[in-house]
């Protein structure tokens, strides 16, 4: 993501924080426990390889989603999280959103990347199959997210579908506040080309997902 993009995102997230502080109904005791838990984690985890202690520092989206976890997220906060995250989404300069589904399938299969046990020089995967059904050939798929089998076929092979797939992979919080799905573009988990390839896996009529 470009520097400008980051600044915009940062500003948007600061704006959410301001709004939340006013409407905050959390009991002081609970905040105190949260603060102590965060401090305890800082002293109980240790940096290892690429996974440094900085990973425990929450951004505003993570903080709010943790705070409201296990209970209903107020609509106003959900909207603010979604708007702030929508503002982070970057698009390729050449406007090309769709790559090679075959490469996308490999990315969808791979769970490598960002663990302290992973080689930081190897490209990360998106591990889509951990949570989603995609190609019917892969029996070993998870169900944390919805089935994406026939994604393109069902949504239509339109520009709108392609753009939505790009956005959702780039930053899922833009559409579903506190989604379980990682923000692959926003956190630079995938490169621009990798996102294109995963988009292709979803929207290319020739992809096994649409057979």
């Amino acid at each position: 993501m470009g520097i400008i993009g980051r600044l915009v995102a940062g500003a948007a997230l600061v704006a959410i924080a301001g709004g939340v502080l006013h409407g905050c109904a959390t009991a002081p005791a609970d905040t105190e426990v949260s603060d102590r838990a965060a401090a305890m984690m800082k002293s109980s985890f240790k940096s290892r390889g690429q996974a440094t202690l900085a990973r425990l520092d929450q951004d505003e989206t993570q903080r709010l989603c943790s705070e409201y976890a296990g209970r209903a997220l107020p609509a106003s906060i959900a909207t603010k999280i979604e708007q702030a995250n929508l503002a982070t989404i970057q698009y390729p300069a050449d406007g090309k959103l769709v790559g090679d589904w075959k490469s996308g399938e490999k990315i969808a299969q791979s769970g490598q990347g960002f663990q302290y046990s992973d080689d930081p020089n190897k490209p990360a995967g998106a591990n889509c199959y951990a949570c989603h059904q995609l190609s019917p050939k892969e029996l070993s798929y998870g169900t944390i997210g919805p089935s994406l089998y026939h994604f393109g076929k069902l949504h239509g092979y339109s520009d709108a579908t392609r753009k939505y797939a790009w956005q959702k992979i780039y930053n899922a919080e833009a559409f579903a506040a506190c989604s379980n799905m990682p923000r692959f573009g926003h956190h630079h988990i995938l490169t621009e080309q990798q996102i294109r390839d995963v988009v292709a896996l979803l929207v290319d009529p020739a992809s096994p997902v649409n057979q």
Partner: protein
Amino acid sequence: MRTIIRRAVAAAVLAGTLAVTVGGAFAESTADEIAKYREALQDGNPAELWEARGEEMWKAPRGPSHVSFARCDLGLGPGVVKGAYAQLPRYFPDASRVMDLETRLVWCMVNQQGYSEADATKTKFGNGSAHRSDLEALAAYVTAQSRGVKMNVALDEPHVRDMYRLGEKMFYYRGGTHDFACATCHGDDGKRIRLQDLPNLTKVEGAQKAYTTWPAYRVSQGELRTFQWRLNDCFRQQRFPELAFGSDASIALTAYLAGRANGAAYDGPAIKR
């Protein structure tokens, strides 16, 4: 040539029997077959090999002080093992700390057997016969002595209660490059990651089923793993930094999950994928 012969034989075999799975398996039959797989494993659990080694270790004089665990108090009195795991973590006044089984074993090794902290925790997680973990063997033995005993973590004890509440916060703490919290994978009913069922740890039944089946022999690793390992490796996959062995955070999260398992009969060490 070789391949051709092999194929020919295979074809002959296929033609001659109906024992071959017909292609096109789908989700329900996959789940059924995985259930069959797990059931078939129950017949012989290599965790017993760890239990036997742990029992020898528990009874033998060890360390620079050459004393056994006979004086080690897991909460029910010196040397008492039966049922002890079902009440851990608990607050130990002699250590002024809430401890889980592994931290308590280390405490006894350091304070009674004369080991240094570093020596006691040198091989926290074993790796093959060249790097065996005494702690994993001891944990296998101690936990097996609570089989069938109902989980009964003292949540009314203030120190334990506090750790439970901190652990609950940790459970929902999102962070890292992937925004994961424990709750990301363990906050809903009936979910799987790949083909692995994910217990919903926010529900009592889910926490009971999960907590009471650790430690476990992991067939994927050929090792017996304790709950400290379970948490350590979850956080690795969460893309978090490393959870330190026996750290307060590890005990807080254990207290939360063990406390939620209260009332269920302990059923480990188990065997798992």
